[in-house]
């Protein structure tokens, strides 16, 4: 394992320190190592619903990179690939509350769900009204009442963007939660890994992949995927991902879409655009139109090589919220 890090235990703290120093116009850190969170430089916006997300670190720019105007109010980074504990979530929730309540955007992992659940209860004790929306867009995982259900992956960015815009325009907590839920219902993702990643404190790759194998349906925590198949061309891999996503979402002719091709951290941009090219072509073959696109590293797995394809079905309102101004470290337009 070679990484640009110092003490493996200090990775998150040092990285957040660098992050808030580099983006001091946008964000501040709580500074408290026991209750570490990142929030908007200006503090809570009075009267606005606060948006808080978080989860294990290692997925940067998620979530701290999306704190700012039109998106999150606070982000809580756990240890690498480990959900944060309730305490910092509570602290972030209190900090994000502008009096209109706080929406927790939680990716569907047992750990995230349980820790945010406890935090929500504790925050209510501090007189903050909390509603939670669970993001579960990963079609690689079978959705079933008898399992942990689908994971939340790159679709989370679109939930955060669009719910953030709803909060910014003044929607109340219930309405923001409803928008977030609507985005989650209309977004699907699936990913592939060409290589594993190495968690700093583990010091070994999260799984072993032969030189001619890839993992289809990979999660964002270095957890193994749905199946291991022989390496294939970008077009073939993309077709596999896109087909699973579009079938599950039942993409139909006339649908207006956002297409997000997300890098897992170690993939060159040029390869993401090759994936994008094919994904878009396949969507257009279905008669759908790609109205907006994002291509880049948004929800990563450390230095993993690979990509995920996310499709969101738009309606007029979602599109206008998507287009609304956003100014964060990792996403910026209109502001």
């Amino acid at each position, binding site marked *: 394992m070679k990484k640009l890090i110092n003490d493996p235990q200090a990775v998150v703290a040092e990285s957040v320190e660098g992050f808030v120093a580099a983006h001091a116009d946008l964000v501040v850190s709580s500074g408290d190592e026991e209750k570490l969170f990142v929030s908007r430089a200006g503090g809570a916006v009075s009267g606005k619903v606060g948006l808080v997300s978080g989860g294990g670190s290692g997925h940067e720019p998620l979530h701290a990179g999306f704190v700012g105007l039109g998106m999150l109010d606070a982000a809580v980074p756990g240890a690498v690939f480990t959900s*944060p504990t309730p305490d910092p979530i509570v602290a972030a929730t209190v900090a994000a509350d502008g009096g209109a309540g706080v929406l927790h955007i939680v990716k569907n992992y047992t750990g995230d769900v*349980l820790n945010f659940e406890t935090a929500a209860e504790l925050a209510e004790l501090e007189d903050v009204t909390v509603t939670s929306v669970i993001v579960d867009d990963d079609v690689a995982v079978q959705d079933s009442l008898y399992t942990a259900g689908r994971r939340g992956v790159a679709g989370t960015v679109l939930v955060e963007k669009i719910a953030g815009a709803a909060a910014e325009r003044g929607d109340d907590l219930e309405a923001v939660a409803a928008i977030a839920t609507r985005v989650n219902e209309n977004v699907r993702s699936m990913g592939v890994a060409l290589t594993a990643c190495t968690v700093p404190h583990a010091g070994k790759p999260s799984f072993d992949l032969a030189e001619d194998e890839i993992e289809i349906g990979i999660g964002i925590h*270095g957890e*193994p995927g749905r199946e291991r198949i022989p390496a294939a061309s970008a077009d073939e891999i993309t077709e596999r991902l896109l087909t699973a996503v579009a079938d599950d979402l039942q993409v139909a002719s006339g649908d207006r879409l956002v297409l997000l091709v997300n890098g897992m951290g170690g993939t060159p941009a040029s390869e993401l655009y090759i994936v994008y090219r094919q994904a878009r072509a396949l969507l257009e073959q279905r008669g759908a139109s790609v109205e907006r696109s994002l291509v880049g590293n948004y929800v990563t797995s450390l230095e993993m090589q690979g990509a995920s394809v996310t499709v969101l079905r738009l309606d007029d309102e979602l599109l206008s919220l998507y287009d609304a101004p956003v100014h964060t470290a990792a996403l910026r337009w209109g502001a």
Partner: protein
Amino acid sequence: GSLGVAWARAWVEASADVMRQNRMALIDLDRAIGDGDHGENMDRGFTAVLGKLQSTETETIGDVLALVAKTLMSTVGGAAGPLYGTAYLRASKAAGTTLDAAGVADVLEAALGGIVARGKADREDKTMVDAWGPASEAARDVARAGGSGVEAVQAAAEAAQAGAVATEPLTARKGRASYLGARSVGHRDPGAQSTALLLDAAAAAAREGERG
């Protein structure tokens, strides 16, 4: 044969020890069917617990277990943090001043109840429930048979280890391993194994207490 606060403190110390020693083994189990952090999480948690314990007076078993609960909840994170946190919290409430075999069974059942309440896993879902379940049953059996508290802990530890081993052929239906479906077969659940290690630490502390 009964267990008191000294045992509880010794258990925590032994737990911190065993988590440190098995850190990499648990990471490796979790790498296979999860995300490779379980050993790190538990080690971080019990290191913190040990620190807290050394600077805290405790009068009852319940005090000790409550301290463990709070500290794990606020330092472990992930799935294991809230689950173990709730387990120890419920256990702390169930614990009397000293534990005979029935008391041990009560404590373990309370812990199990907390885990199930939070995680909603059934037996054979390939989680830590598959260690806590057999453990509490074994303790209850010892109580019914008139054994001692120490014997109950010993039986619980053995049952937990057997339960952890028995997760190997199972298909995971809860937690991160469930994403793997059939590919989770053949691997031991890391949380079940950490449970077995913790109960083994409990038994070792009990045996030490007998001798000392």
